[in-house]
């Protein structure tokens, strides 16, 4: 859903997206040391696999984006992790494209960073039983912000795409609902079962 294919967006947008995401990638890679690579890779792979879950909703079904949860758990590391997942999806499944990789990365990574900025500080002093709300906020915020960015990239590419952008924005609403329930439950689960997982990632790459 968040994969814009090649051939749609205008050139200025593609170039801007490519440059900005390259900058973000460089910044986040500098903060990531080699010792933490296996963990980042593992989480990147987890999110890649989890994105394959298709959740039925009414007569249709949706795939989870999980960028909000990634931002919450990984902080800055979410940027390269999302980028890698997008590259793999593009070259092995043909989802998205190669020139729009920059824009697609930004559309997913900026909301992840927003979640990291707003919600990660709350992780450390999370009261027992409150994990659900934090996770739900991350999931909902991630999806809605991504939907807004995807619609914006379409809208900026040409007058003719505006109505499509509006329709697209509406389709993100049910996904936001489903995703916030799923990520909420997942964070509540992690908080109960493996709190060190939440705190560990928090302490070492923040």
């Amino acid at each position, binding site marked *: 859903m968040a994969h814009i*294919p090649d*051939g749609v967006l205008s050139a200025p947008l593609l170039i801007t997206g490519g440059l900005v995401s390259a900058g973000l990638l460089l910044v986040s890679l500098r903060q990531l040391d080699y010792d933490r690579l296996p963990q980042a890779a593992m989480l990147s792979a987890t999110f890649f696999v989890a994105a394959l879950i298709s959740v*039925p909703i009414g007569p249709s079904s949706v795939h989870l984006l999980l960028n909000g949860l990634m931002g919450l758990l990984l902080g800055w590391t979410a940027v390269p992790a999302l980028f890698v997942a997008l590259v793999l999806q593009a070259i092995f499944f043909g989802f998205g494209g*190669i020139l729009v990789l920059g824009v697609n990365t930004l559309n997913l990574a900026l909301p992840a960073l927003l979640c990291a900025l707003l919600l990660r500080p709350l992780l450390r002093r999370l009261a027992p039983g409150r994990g659900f709300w934090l996770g739900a906020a991350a999931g909902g915020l991630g999806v809605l912000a991504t939907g807004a960015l995807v619609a914006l990239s379409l809208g900026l590419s040409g007058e003719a795409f505006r109505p499509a952008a509006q329709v697209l924005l509406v389709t993100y609403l049910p996904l936001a609902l489903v995703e916030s329930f799923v*990520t909420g439950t997942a964070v509540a689960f992690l908080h109960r079962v493996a709190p060190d997982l939440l705190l560990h990632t928090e302490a070492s790459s923040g």
Partner: protein
Amino acid sequence: MISALPLAPRSHWIGGLDPRLRILSALLFALVTVSLTKLSTALVAFVLAAALAASLGTGLRVLLRRFLALEGFMLILLVTLPFTVSGEPLVTLGPLAASGSGVALAVEILLKANSIALVLLTLVGSLEPVVLGHALARLGVPEKLVHLLLMTVGQVHLLREEFVRLRQAMRARAFVPRSNRHTWNSYGWLLGMLLVRSAERSRRMMAAMRCRCFRGHFHLLDSIQWRRADTTWALGLGLPLAALAILDRLS
């Protein structure tokens, strides 16, 4: 999923090409195709991509799967574009009029997106992940990013097995996904469990790598060399693409 990919057999002519060249060719093809402005030239690009994919044998199946699995994004675009681009009305539906130029634009986008995806799947997707990583590193992609990519590829298939196992356990307990809170909670727990297991696995993996004297750095051991076949291929792809770009500007 990775294991189920249509990998090109080693003996195939494309296997002999320099992996860097394959990545760059896909990039060049994407650049030229995106810059095309006419439906006719986009069609030529698509035929070129389809011919390339077909010469590898896996083309038609992949193509069909891609067309069938039209994503929500493309679907919305294809349905709205005919009505939003102004031009001679082709069909009128009450107050709405589908313009011929809108339909042409929709088809053009569909052709471009699919031909680029096809070339990408054929040229880059058929590379072995390790070779792909090395080629990217040799092309100047930061080494840390390449390591992350290689490690992720290595883990995806293990985690997928884990995921299938967990999902099977749910099915054994008669879990059927529906649109209700129970389904979302169950998937939340599934996701949480997947994260817990993967964290454990990464800890074990790091320990195992330390035991083997891993000091935060992989050495890229390969010897990619440019050969005559590569030059032939570069010309064989470059000339038609240049012709296509010129043809698009001319008429």
